[in-house]
């Protein structure tokens, strides 16, 4: 295929350009474990989010394989019913809260500051706090496996079924407390990124010159900002019920069993868009790059994203059509749910229109992006069938639902973010992932994905219930369950191929010339600096004149209206050689503060004395955080040339200027 040749031409290999890695490595400052643990650099935090999420992807994937092994044959005995409950619950919890959300956070952290031409986020220390808070919360939830059993109430944990009566192990306590801790992470991160996007856009970058990716991530942060507190309320009520005998879900005392469902799905539906919009953002960057065309209908892309975010608040009860919410509610939510398919359809149309007539290069990121457009559409269409309440009544709690949300979450979110991995890998690490192995991996994943989840449509319509531990032979479930299980191992192989690709590509990259700032001939600002991104992002903050400013610096029009190159990427890009940029200093306190939170969590479950210990750590860390002088040389350990300039300091000075 011609794609590889094109790739070679545009990868901008110029042997005279010095490999930027060596220039940037500060022998004492940028290496070693301490430089990661105490880092406040948004790029390192982004990479740590990504690494942690990939780790949990493997954990959640193993849980998925256990589920599929159990269901491969009728009467499976791999797991007991109790273990099965825990495994499918934790599979959902892990994949949604510990894989998809942090992967979105990984891309947001790494790319949003770069795409808006900023040197870091608005609050670097809070950013580090968000990551550690997420990681410790995630480990806290998973520690339940070793402390009496994991959560077993399904990922949406319907109370009162998740009360102590029906789930006496501590698993759901870990769920309720752990997700509050990761919720703090999401909320703080959301505030941070919202302020970053509002305040730190480079000069000239108006709202409608922001890349679509940044727009989508901005919408996601707004959704998180408003959705997380609702979930926090629900989790608090559940925690109070379970730990302190409150009556919120005590039906005997007159409680309404629908309270949890409503609160959960008020959060839960925006959550769906929190998961998918980062993937939409990724492919909105990938498809124009590899179609050599600007995104079709940029304003429509932006407004449909905003519309999805806004309408996502008015559709939650479509998860509850079978819960007895009454005909008026069902009708109203049914209509609103059908409406929300419109902006999503606009997006699909615009991606297809972007590709239409473009000079397509089917690189690995592009393959994954096309995979998203097609697979997500399948999931979206089955979603529309759920919007029809009478049909949904048949489908609820069957494998048809499982098929639907895996098509949108796996086919949309995971494939979209894999596209992002292949696309931005050279930017983050300075070497390309092998295209050949990448494409092989893509096809294995696409095959495995459809083999696994495609048959679930049939199983569901045949009436196989979701979450059943096993089934008896002769119900017509045998064949498709076996196909599905085989498919799931193809997915596992595809993920393994990705990991192997990382390892081999890294090893081989030593013998290859450096990738240069812009290996894909891309459009947005992050490609205008060296690869891997220097610690200070940009030597000089660019002044923005156009949407896709970087592209317009490279390409212009001749008098006949043909697109002609006016500069090479190397001429336009900055080489990252500047060393006198002031950056925020690393800090001990973010990790310390977040370390206290799970200890409080263990205390609530096991012994209140631990709460005292955890509380002391938290208070000490907050005290140290506040007292930490922004530009103290002690605080700037390892960074001899960084005076440090904390956001607080900057704001104080800014106030001075304004006054």
């Amino acid at each position: 295929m011609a794609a590889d040749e094109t790739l070679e031409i545009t990868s901008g290999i110029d042997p005279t350009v010095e490999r930027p890695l060596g220039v940037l490595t500060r022998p004492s400052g940028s290496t070693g474990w301490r430089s990661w643990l105490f880092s406040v650099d948004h790029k390192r935090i982004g990479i740590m989010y990504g690494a942690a999420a990939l780790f949990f992807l493997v954990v959640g994937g193993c849980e998925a394989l256990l589920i599929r092994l159990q269901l491969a044959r009728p009467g499976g005995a791999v797991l007991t019913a109790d273990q099965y409950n825990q495994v499918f619950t934790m599979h959902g919890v892990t994949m949604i809260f510990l894989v998809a959300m942090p992967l979105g956070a990984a891309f947001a952290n790494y790319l949003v500051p770069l795409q808006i031409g900023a040197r870091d986020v608005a609050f670097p220390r809070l950013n580090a706090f968000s990551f550690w808070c997420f990681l410790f919360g995630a480990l806290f939830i998973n520690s339940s496996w070793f402390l009496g059993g994991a959560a077993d109430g399904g990922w949406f944990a319907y109370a009162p079924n998740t009360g102590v009566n029906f789930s006496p192990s501590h698993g759901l306590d870990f769920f309720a407390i752990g997700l509050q801790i990761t919720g703090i992470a999401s909320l703080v991160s959301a505030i941070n990124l919202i302020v970053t996007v509002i305040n730190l856009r480079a000069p000239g970058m108006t709202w409608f010159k922001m890349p679509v990716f940044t727009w989508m991530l901005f919408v996601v942060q707004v959704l998180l900002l408003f959705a997380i507190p609702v979930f926090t309320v629900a989790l608090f009520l559940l925690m109070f019920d379970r730990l302190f005998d409150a009556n919120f879900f005590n039906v005997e005392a007159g409680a309404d069993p629908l309270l949890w469902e409503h609160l959960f799905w008020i959060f839960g539906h925006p959550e769906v868009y929190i998961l998918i919009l980062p993937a939409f953002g990724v492919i909105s960057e990938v498809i124009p790059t590899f179609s050599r065309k600007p995104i079709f209908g940029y304003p429509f892309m932006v407004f449909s994203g905003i519309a999805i975010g806004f309408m996502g608040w008015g559709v939650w009860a479509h998860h509850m059509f079978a819960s007895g919410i009454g005909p008026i509610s069902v009708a109203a939510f049914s209509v609103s749910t059908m409406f929300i398919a419109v902006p999503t359809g606009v997006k699909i149309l615009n991606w297809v229109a972007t590709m239409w007539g473009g000079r397509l290069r089917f690189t690995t990121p592009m393959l994954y992006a096309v995979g998203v457009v097609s697979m997500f559409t399948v999931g979206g269409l089955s979603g529309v069938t759920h919007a029809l309440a009478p049909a949904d009544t048949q489908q609820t709690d069957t494998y048809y639902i499982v098929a639907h949300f895996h098509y949108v979450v796996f086919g949309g979110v995971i494939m979209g973010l894999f596209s992002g991995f292949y696309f931005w890998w050279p930017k983050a690490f300075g070497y390309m992932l092998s295209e050949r192995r990448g494409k092989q991996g893509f096809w294995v994943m696409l095959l495995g994905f459809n083999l696994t989840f495609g048959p679930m449509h049939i199983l569901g319509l045949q009436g196989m219930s979701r979450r059943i531990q096993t089934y008896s032979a002769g119900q017509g479930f045998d064949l498709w369950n076996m196909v599905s299980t085989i498919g799931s191992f193809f997915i596992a192989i595809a993920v393994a191929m990705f990991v192997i690709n990382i390892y081999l590509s890294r090893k081989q990259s030593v013998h290859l010339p450096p990738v240069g700032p812009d290996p894909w001939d891309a459009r947005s600002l992050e490609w205008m600096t060296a690869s891997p991104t220097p610690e200070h992002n940009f030597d000089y903050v660019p002044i923005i004149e156009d949407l896709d400013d970087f592209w317009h610096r490279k390409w212009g029009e001749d008098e006949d209206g043909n697109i002609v190159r006016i500069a090479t990427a190397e001429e336009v890009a900055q080489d990252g050689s500047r060393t006198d940029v002031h950056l925020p200093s690393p800090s001990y306190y973010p990790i310390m503060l977040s370390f206290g939170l799970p200890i409080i969590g263990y205390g609530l479950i096991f012994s209140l004395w631990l709460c005292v210990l955890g509380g002391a750590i938290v208070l000490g860390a907050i005290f140290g955080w506040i007292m930490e002088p922004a530009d103290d040389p002690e605080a700037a350990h390892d960074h001899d040339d960084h005076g440090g300039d904390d956001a607080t300091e900057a704001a104080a000075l800014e106030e001075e200027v304004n006054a």
Partner: protein
Amino acid sequence: MTTATDHVETHDEHDDHMTDWKYVQIALLLGVLTGIEVFTYFESVLDWGKALVPVLLVLMVTKFYVVAAYFMHLKFDSRFFSRAFAGGLVLAMGVYAIFFAAFGVHFWEIFQD
């Protein structure tokens, strides 16, 4: 680099308009409104009947608005702040209104027995 100047200007305006004495006057107004609220409790003095809940809601919204607009400076500050806050507030009211509707509770009934 240029920074937007709206903020700075509105800030000056706020310094011109608000004095400590004005803050005290506003607090007095809030105190009076609270007095009226508490007064409604003593039904033997005056029975508001069906007007009670609307009157209380109007008083509540007024107090809320006065604190947000003057004490929190929203009236004089950047529109961004108002939008961020109003965004959360309006969304909360909308979402929880639908929440009650979905429970089949007519909004009015929440406030009655």
